[in-house]
Structure formats: C-alpha cells, structure tokens
C-alpha cells in the first residue's frame, strides 16, 4: 500500500502563548489520535522533534559549510507520521482528525522511496532527524536538485547509525491542510516560491548534536541543498 508522510508544522512562538492546560489538552488529543491510527493499522511510524531552538541547520556558505543555530523560521516541523493509505484522498481523510494547534498547517506528501525504521526512540542513545531542504524557482528544477542529492548520497550513510529515511514526491503531488477558526481547507502544495521545501527526511543515531553537525557538514547534501538537524523527542 502507498505510504504518505504527514508533516505537522507548528509555530513555537504561538506555542509559547498557549496556556499550559491547552497544551496538555492538545497533547492528550494527539496521543489519543495516535492510538487510533495504530489501531486502524494505518500507522507506520511517527515521532515528535525537540524544539527547533535546539536544532541546527547546515548549508553551503561562501567558505565551506555554514551552520546556523535554531530557532528557524516559523512555522516549522514539530512532528511527523508515516501512514499507509490507498491513495492521497484516503490519506487526507486520516489526517482530517489529526489534532493540531490552531493555525498550524499539515503537509501530506506521498513517499517516493525508502523506508523508516519504527520505534526509533525505544532504542538507547540519541536519534536525530535530518530534513533535506531544497530551494528552486520551479518544481522541475526542485526535482532536479533532489535527484542530484539522491544520486550523490546513495550508500553514503554509516550503516550502524542509519535508522532509515524517505524521499518525498514533488510538492505538487502533495497537499497542505490548513486550519483556522475550526475549519479546515485543503490546498495543493506546498508552494515552492515562498520557501524551502522538504524533499525527504532521514534518521541517524548520533552521540551528540556536534557529531550530527560534523557529519552533515561533510555530506554531499549541503552541496546542493540544506539539512535541518533536529533531535527526536521521546514522548
């Protein structure tokens, strides 16, 4: 069955203004939603990411790799799921009930290739998510960027540390679900013009953030795009 990656974005600035009881209620609803997904066997994997303020972004600078510390632009990736569904519409139906903070957008993107290892946070040690980001003026060139990255990085992962990863289909083949005032609207997209678009997500066990940054800086990813490194949050 086809797999879809659900990328839940959140605004940490807005998050900080929520009353703690709202946060608690949201977390409980999210936990219940996940139980339901698992029960429905649609669930493949899902993790929450630690705050972006603790993350790093590695890209190409004028003189070698450029490393920036979070927080990054708003809103940004807060959690993800990998779901199995017959088609995009079925995936969107599963996502319809996904509880998110008011105004937080959800991206639903078909998985092109790869697979993720489930239950990553049940293993000891720290696991970091690496989001592959690409910027391009149009979809064709964006796909070109991702193709180049894909070709250059095949088999470049240290096997004992790699915990799986997926490449996503082009942005136009996905959808963005936005919610405001209790109503949800579905758009094509995400749009390339406005920002970097995520082309894939992979995971590695690392002893520290420094090690993750070190690895990213020397990888072929940053020759063509950028990597955002975020630690998985055991929750």
């Amino acid at each position: 069955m086809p797999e879809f990656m659900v990328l839940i974005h959140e605004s940490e600035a807005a998050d900080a203004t929520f009353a703690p009881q709202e946060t608690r209620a949201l977390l409980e609803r999210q936990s219940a939603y996940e139980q339901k997904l698992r029960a429905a066997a649609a669930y493949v994997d899902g993790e929450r990411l630690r705050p972006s303020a603790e993350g790093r972004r590695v890209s190409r600078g004028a003189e070698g790799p450029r490393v920036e510390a979070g927080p990054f632009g708003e809103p940004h990736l807060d959690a993800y799921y990998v779901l199995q569904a017959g088609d995009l519409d079925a995936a969107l139906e599963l996502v319809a009930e996904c509880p998110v903070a008011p105004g937080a957008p959800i991206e639903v993107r078909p998985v092109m290739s790869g697979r993720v290892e489930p239950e990553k946070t049940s293993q000891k040690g720290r696991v970091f998510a690496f989001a592959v980001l690409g910027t391009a003026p149009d979809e064709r060139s964006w796909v070109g960027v991702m193709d180049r990255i894909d070709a250059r990085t095949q088999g470049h992962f240290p096997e004992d540390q790699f915990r799986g990863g997926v490449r996503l289909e082009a942005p136009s083949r996905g959808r963005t679900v936005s919610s405001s005032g209790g109503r949800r609207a579905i758009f094509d997209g995400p749009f390339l013009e406005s920002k970097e678009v995520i082309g894939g997500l992979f995971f590695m066990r690392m002893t520290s953030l420094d090690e993750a940054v070190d690895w990213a800086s020397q990888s072929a990813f940053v020759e063509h795009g950028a990597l955002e490194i975020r630690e998985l949050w055991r929750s």
Partner: protein
Amino acid sequence: MAELTHAIADIVRREKSRVVASLVRRLGSIDAAEEAFQEAVLAALPSWRSGLPTNPAAWLTTAAKNHARDAARHQRVVDEKAPLLVEHDMAQAETLDSVSDDQLRLSFTCCHPALTLDSQVALTLKVVAGLTTDEIARAFLCPEKTVSQRITRAKKTILDRQLPYEVPERVELPERLASVLAVVYLVFNEGHTTRQGPLLRLDLQADALRLARLLCDLLPNESEVFGLLALIALSLARAETRTDEHGDLLLLSEQDRSRWDRARIKEGLLSLQRARRLGGGGTYALQAEISACHATAPSWEDTEWSQILRFYEQLLAREPSPVVALNRAVAVCMHSGPAAGLEALGELEAALTSYHLFFALRADFRSRLGEDARADYQRALSLARNASERRFLQKKIDQLD
C-alpha cells in the same frame, strides 16, 4: 580568553561522562580515566585558542586516549611488571552501543549501594555530571575538603570491594535503578528545598535535569526514568516564581502562573506521557502526575483536586509516608473543605511532631474553620528551619491579631 575558558568548561561538563565512561572500561579505574581526561582538557586550551573543533568530544576522547596510552607505555618502561595496557583495545573504535553502555555502567557504579549516599551524590556529580569538586562544595554549602574526601573514599571503596563496572542484570535492575534515580532526585531536591543560604539553587536543578535526560537516553523503556524527568521538568518550570523579590518562599497559591516556563511544562508533560505509556504508576510518575495537575491548572482554586487526591492515594498505597499524607491533607482541604482536611491530618502528629509544616498546615485549617490557630503557628515558628520560613510564619501570627 575568558569566553574560550567558559566555552571549554561548558563542553567539559557536557562531554565528560561520555569520555570518562569509555576510559574507565579501558583503564580499569575512575581515577586513571579522570586523569587522562584532565590532561586532554589541559591540552585543549592552547590548541582550541584558534577555534573550537567541530566535534570537541571526539577531540577530547582522542587526546585522552593518547595520554592514557603514553602513560601506560611510560609505566611499562619504568616497571616491566606493570599491568599491560592492551593497546589494540585503546585503538578500537567505539560503537554507539559501547558508548551508551559505558555511560550506563558508570552511572550504576557511581550510585552503587555499597557507597554512602553522600558519596554516591558527590561521585555522580563529579564524574557523570562533570562538575568540579569546588562547584559541588558550593552547591551543597559544605567545605571543598569534605567533598573531595567523599569522592576519594568512594573511589577507594570501588577499588577495595572491586565493585563491578557493569549494568545490573535484569532481576537486579529495578532496585539498582531506584538507587541511581534517588541520587538524581536528591541532587534536584537539594537545589530545590530550602536549607540555609540561597533558597533555590537553579544550577543544581539544571544538572539534575541534564542527568535525568541522559538516563532517559540510556534507558528509554523504563517508566520511572521518564517519571523522574517529568517531575524535575515540571518543578523546574515553576522555579523562578517560587520566591518573591526578597527571596522569601511563595506558596503555590501565591505564585504568578503566567511566569511559569511553558516550554519546560511541555517537556514535563511529554515525559509523563511516555512514563504512562511504559506502564506508569511508579512513585516518580505519580508525583509528576500531581505536579502536572498543578502546572496546568489556571489557578490554585481551579485545580483538579479530585485527580490530585486520587494520585496521592496511589502514592500512599505504594509508599506510605507521613510527609506525603500531609500533602494529601492539603488536597483534601481544597477538595472537601478545612474540616475534612483537619480530619486527614488526624493521626499524623506523632510522626511529624518536629516538622514545622505539619503545624503550619493545621494552623491554617483551624483558622479557616474559625478556630484558634495561634498555638500551632507558634509551634511551627519554633521548628522553622530558616529566616524566610520564620518571616512567613510571623506574618501569619501577626495577621491573627
């Protein structure tokens, strides 16, 4: 330069346990491992002046290993019978699992029940949390000499009794883990409770948070480890509001809830969620549940007291304690009124006869009921442990007039 020294101190604190843990296994003693690490730090100062390496921990590990190898070679030249340091062992690359396992072994050794609790705490802070002896002494308000004696004694006990450098077997794990968690909790509590001197020592609390996070990474499927992290994060979220501008303690009902640290609360709630998923119901998880009810309540009055009562009952069933029963009485009072609260205090006097909070609480319940509370407040005042508590109680007595 000061900035660099500060940055290095920061890295040392963060990376020490990882580097030392692997060296202990290779060198066979905490002392030798710490010495090699210290040499590496000294070597780092001049080399890093021109810029920090991208991966300082790897740098320190290599430098420490080199030092240890040189020292061993030298030792062999001097004394042919000196124990042979297996060089290929030194050259062997570490795997992710070996690093985690070493850190876990080190934590269990430092918190071995054969050591006194004081020694466990001092050794854990020094070796696992990476604090200096001086920092530990300042945090615990005791002379540096005392701390270094405790550490020396602990290391000697480890050598003399040949305490194993290993993660306990499955059967032994719950009990041994309880002793590791107790040390982290004690570190946290020391930074949290009032003794003498500064009321709250946030540094120590931050160290406890760091240790709890480390344990969560090393034992990701143990409910109580997440319960402890949740408890620490949720309490730490309120730390800044626990005292007023004079440094006096504020009750939970008086604190400015808008200033509670929401990111910390979220971390606490997420850890608690995991603790529950892994079974929950342990003493740290239950205390965290109570703390979560408080942290997410819009006000003192508007708190889920019935939930809190339920958690106190579970806690008492697991671990009967007069202090927990005392806290439960507060929840009873809020849920069912001061008469019920007074009744809940009933039998506790004998056990808490020298605890000022028992009398302060009974005084509070009595005055709510319109009864005479003066004697109880006086008794509490005479038992109070510091000036801040005495000021608080004196104010209450003055208000009675």
